[in-house]
């Protein structure tokens, strides 16, 4: 029995048609795709605020939509918490009343979540008496997340929870999301068009484009494929390495990633764990052996796992404890004779790294 089964068709007046089928057992599933691909339509159908023309939706064994049987469960009976892109906090209620709005309703199927715990995890203490209009963007997003969690949902839907935020705030909210996912274990489906977010949060990825599901599976089954790797738009691929430890060596910060050391750019100061370093695959240089006389500070030895040829270039997956992608030219692949199993050194300039 899947946690979530989705199989719906919906045609809009403008001509756009959604015809998507996917399922997920994962705790965190990402719907990944460009704007206008149908992600939000899927989310709205699951939440019950849009009636798909044809199809079936099941959550934890409960059928929520079955057009063949003319079944369409009302949104308030679905036990699905939604965090909307623009939060939609109730302006006439305090933060506390907003948070508790859904928690008092009967008939919710999910597990009860402790109010004080949510306030603590999302760091909402001190905001409870305020009104939404006096909150910052990040605070509003946290309140919206807390409100949805406290409504005892069986499934949490996040509609681009980070889209409206600037980069610095995005990183911070992402940390909160990670905490929530880890601590409360509420099955979550989130919409995103950032590979970094998807790679960081999702156990299962569903790639949606033009109203169709192009691929579904783990990150390596979906994102590490020629199509997604060749993206040049907002969906472009990104390297994300989890940092095990950060230490101050007097002249800046250094990060330990597995057995490797990375020198972080000056001024990059960790805000709070967990940390990742993020950099583009095109910023990675591959070398055979140990090159000398280079200004590049960061060298990671690894093994080639995969060589993926895309229309825009070749992507080489290198296993350095964690998988790292390098984008290089076809000529370079030929000249270095890169093939799976071969040893290689990845060079990344310190100034290409971004701490997130």
């Amino acid at each position, binding site marked *: 029995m899947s946690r979530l089964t989705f199989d719906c068709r919906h045609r809009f007046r403008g001509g756009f048609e959604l015809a998507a089928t996917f399922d997920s057992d994962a705790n965190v599933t990402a719907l990944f795709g460009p704007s206008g691909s149908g992600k939000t339509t899927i989310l709205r159908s699951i939440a*019950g605020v849009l009636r798909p023309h044809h199809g079936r939706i099941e959550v934890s064994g409960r059928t929520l939509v079955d057009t063949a049987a003319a079944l369409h469960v009302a949104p308030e009976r679905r036990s699905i*918490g939604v965090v*909307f892109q623009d939060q*939609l906090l*109730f302006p006439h209620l305090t933060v506390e009343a907003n948070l508790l*709005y859904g928690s008092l309703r009967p008939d919710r199927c999910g597990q009860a979540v402790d109010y004080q715990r949510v306030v603590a995890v999302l760091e909402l203490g001190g905001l409870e008496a305020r009104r939404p209009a006096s909150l910052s963007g990040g605070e509003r997003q946290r309140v919206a997340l807390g*409100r949805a969690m406290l409504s005892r949902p069986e499934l949490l839907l996040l509609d681009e929870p980070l889209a409206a935020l600037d980069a610095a705030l995005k990183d911070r909210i992402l940390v909160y999301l990670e905490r929530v996912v880890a601590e409360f274990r509420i099955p979550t489906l989130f919409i995103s068009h950032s590979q970094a977010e998807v790679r960081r949060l999702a156990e299962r990825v569903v790639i949606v484009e033009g109203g169709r599901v192009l691929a579904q599976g783990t990150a390596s089954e979906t994102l590490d494929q020629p199509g997604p790797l060749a993206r040049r738009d907002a969906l472009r691929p990104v390297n994300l390495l989890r940092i095990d430890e950060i230490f101050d060596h007097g002249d800046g910060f250094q990060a330990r990633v597995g057995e490797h050391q990375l020198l972080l750019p000056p001024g990059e100061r960790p805000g709070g764990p967990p940390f990742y370093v993020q950099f583009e695959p095109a910023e990675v240089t591959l070398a055979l052996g140990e090159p000398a006389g280079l200004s590049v500070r960061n060298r990671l030895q690894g093994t080639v796992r995969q060589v993926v040829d895309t229309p825009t270039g070749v992507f080489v997956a290198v296993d350095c404890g964690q998988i790292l992608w390098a984008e290089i030219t076809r000529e370079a692949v030929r000249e270095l004779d890169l093939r799976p199993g071969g040893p290689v050194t990845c060079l990344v300039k310190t100034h290409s790294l971004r701490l997130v």
Partner: protein
Amino acid sequence: MSAWIDPGTWSAVRLSLLVAASVVTVSLPVAVPLGYALARSQFRGKWLIEVAANLPLVLPPVVVGWALLVLFQPEGALGRLLLPLGIRVAFDWKGLVVAAAVMSFPLLLRAVRLGFESVDPRLEMAARTLGASRLATFLTISLPLARRGVIAGCVLAFARSLGEFGATVMLVSQRESTRTIPLLIYSLRDRVGGERQIWILVAVSVVLAGAALAGSEILERRARAGRVEES
């Protein structure tokens, strides 16, 4: 005080206030759901309701009064139904309420409807995903957020009812027991020595209108203070 203002004037003021308050009490439970339905949903015959509700605004009041009289006279379509229940509307104080309610309804409905239209429907959608039923959503989200329109509508309906004359005169006519402020002013016009009383009634009308406006302003401010900078 009563030496200065005679009992007839007092009873007219009391009656006017009672009628205006009754109009708001009777009309609001109709205007709120109807205003919400007009603001939110598309349904067959919606235009018909809109036209009917706005008709008293464009028709001459005496025409509306005549139509009400035809309906509510003992042989009329509604009068015949009400008669066995012992309810008389035509030529009775209840007629004052009916006439004023009909005449002020378009103003009340319009303000209430605008109030609901100013509420983002997505907030209602959010409330429902949080487990609130349609009714709970309406009571906890839509109505509180539309309250400015509702308050404004009540003040307008109250003030309009205080001044109602044309339809009232047709339906209830001039009697000692059914004299509101405007009816009394009219009846005093040709009476010798009535001028002083007219001036008093005019002053009372001005004070009442001012009080209604001030009351709505206070309610509005209190509502606004409650939500600080609610966007």
